[in-house]
């Protein structure tokens, strides 16, 4: 009956292997180079080099998608929490993109954003505005992949918030109504605190999702323009390992990313605990 555990071997092996990246700190065949990779990475960070660009891309992308999808998701969920016609339809529509593959979405949006014959350029053109060059200008390119990802993942935050809202106790709101609390006060004093656990859960899961984006970026921009305009850390892991054949450096980036994740998660869990003891 202990067989149940043995099915876990691949999983544990995966975790074990993920720590192995410590030792593959050099190109094939693995040669021990100590902290060379790390010093290279930190050099690039401090002097505004390659790793600084990648880290800032990652931060911008993740922060925008996490905050954006949570704020919009909550707003939509509150809107749909009331009894309105067509609720089911909108719910399905908003959630639908979440199940569509990133690769397919990337291709579709590549076409929509095309500066010459894309949909957006056409819309702007009818207003007499010239479309920004989404593929040549790094900032616009980053904006483009961020928006695309947001479009895909908004539904997830929305669905979770909606479920949380529908599970809320009605008495709270009745009490607030008796007290003649304004809509804004109710939202701030009742709804938000009530949604705290949900917000906490979402902030972690959405962040993990955002940090893992590969398909959309690969399909739309290949991490470009200008070398690394939309390269995030995950993409850099891929690029260094499988394009530049520097597995050691790729592993270093992966390890650093893992540490960052760990720190953020621990901080979030702790802030959550503190919130509970208040």
């Amino acid at each position: 009956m202990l067989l149940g555990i043995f099915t876990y071997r691949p999983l544990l092996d995966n975790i074990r292997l993920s720590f192995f990246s410590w030792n593959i700190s050099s190109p094939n065949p693995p040669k021990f180079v100590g902290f060379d990779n790390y010093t290279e990475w930190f050099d690039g960070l401090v002097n505004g080099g390659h790793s600084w660009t990648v880290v800032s891309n990652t931060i911008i992308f993740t922060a925008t998608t996490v905050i954006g999808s949570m704020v919009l998701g909550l707003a939509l969920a509150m809107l749909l929490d009331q009894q309105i016609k067509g609720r089911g339809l909108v719910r399905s529509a908003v959630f639908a993109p979440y199940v569509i593959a990133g690769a397919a979405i990337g291709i579709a949006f590549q076409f929509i954003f095309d500066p010459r014959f894309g949909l957006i350029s056409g819309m702007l053109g009818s207003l007499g505005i010239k479309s920004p060059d989404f593929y040549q200008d790094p900032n616009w390119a980053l904006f483009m992949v961020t928006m695309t990802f947001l479009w895909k993942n908004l539904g997830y935050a929305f669905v979770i918030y909606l479920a949380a809202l529908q599970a809320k106790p009605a008495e709270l709101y009745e009490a607030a109504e008796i007290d003649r609390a304004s809509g804004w006060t109710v939202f701030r004093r009742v709804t938000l605190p009530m949604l705290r656990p949900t917000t906490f859960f979402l902030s972690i899961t959405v962040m993990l999702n955002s940090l893992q984006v590969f398909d959309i970026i690969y399909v739309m921009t290949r991490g470009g323009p200008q070398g690394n305009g939309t390269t995030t850390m995950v993409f850099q892991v891929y690029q260094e390992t499988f394009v530049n054949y520097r597995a050691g450096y790729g592993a270093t980036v992966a390890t650093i990313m893992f540490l960052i994740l760990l720190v953020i998660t621990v901080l979030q869990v702790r802030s959550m605990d503190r919130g509970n003891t208040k």
Partner: protein
Amino acid sequence: MVLTLLIVGIPLYWVLSNSFKTPDQVFRVPPLWWPESFTASNYPRVFSESPFGQYMLNSVIITSILAAIKIVLGVISAYAFAYLRFPGRGAVFMLVLAALMVPNQITVISNYALVSQLGWINTFQGIIIPLAGVAFGTFLMRNHFMSLPYEIIEAARMDGASHMRLLFRIILPMSWPTLVAFALITVVNEWNEYLWPFLVASDDSVAPIQVGLTRLVNTDSGFTDWPLVMAATVLTVIPILVVFLFLQRYMIKGLTSGAVKG
């Protein structure tokens, strides 16, 4: 409300309408909202001019095998964590939860090295096995098993029911909705999985649909047949959307069950 529908709907509509255009209409400036002349020829061309049928078949193979493995493993291990007492149970379960936090992307390098050592590059097992760890499903099912009334399980044990019997006769019949949710989320995730198959399947014979789709865009000739790609995109998205529309209730339930409890 209407705005929301538009924001979601327009991109989807755009892909659909382009899949019915002839190449010269696709590159019109300004873009055409409505194809001037409908042509359905892009769809048959997807199958005749690209290995798309093969991709689709590969995807079905990979997804179904993976989902089957994951569901079986997920249920068995959840059963072990919920009903068996073995030394270190809590610690092992923590490890499973921790695995939820580790993104695939971080393990990609070492896994790739391992798979290529085994000579599994460009094989189905190379794509499938490294993806077969089931942290999410175990977590979901275990929580559900824990919520079942314990008396029933006890009674069955008193009657001397074997583990298998207990699982299939008593526990699973009480667990269908959660099981469906788990299966569905797994299928969707595997169908959409990109990075790993993309690395392992450099060959058309095993590449799944998502990887194949991007190959249609980045052809060797540098020319992209957009109407064909759009038609292929529609074909890629439709199976999943259909499944989703019929079963979204379960899927949402599965996704939210871990969240709302906090």
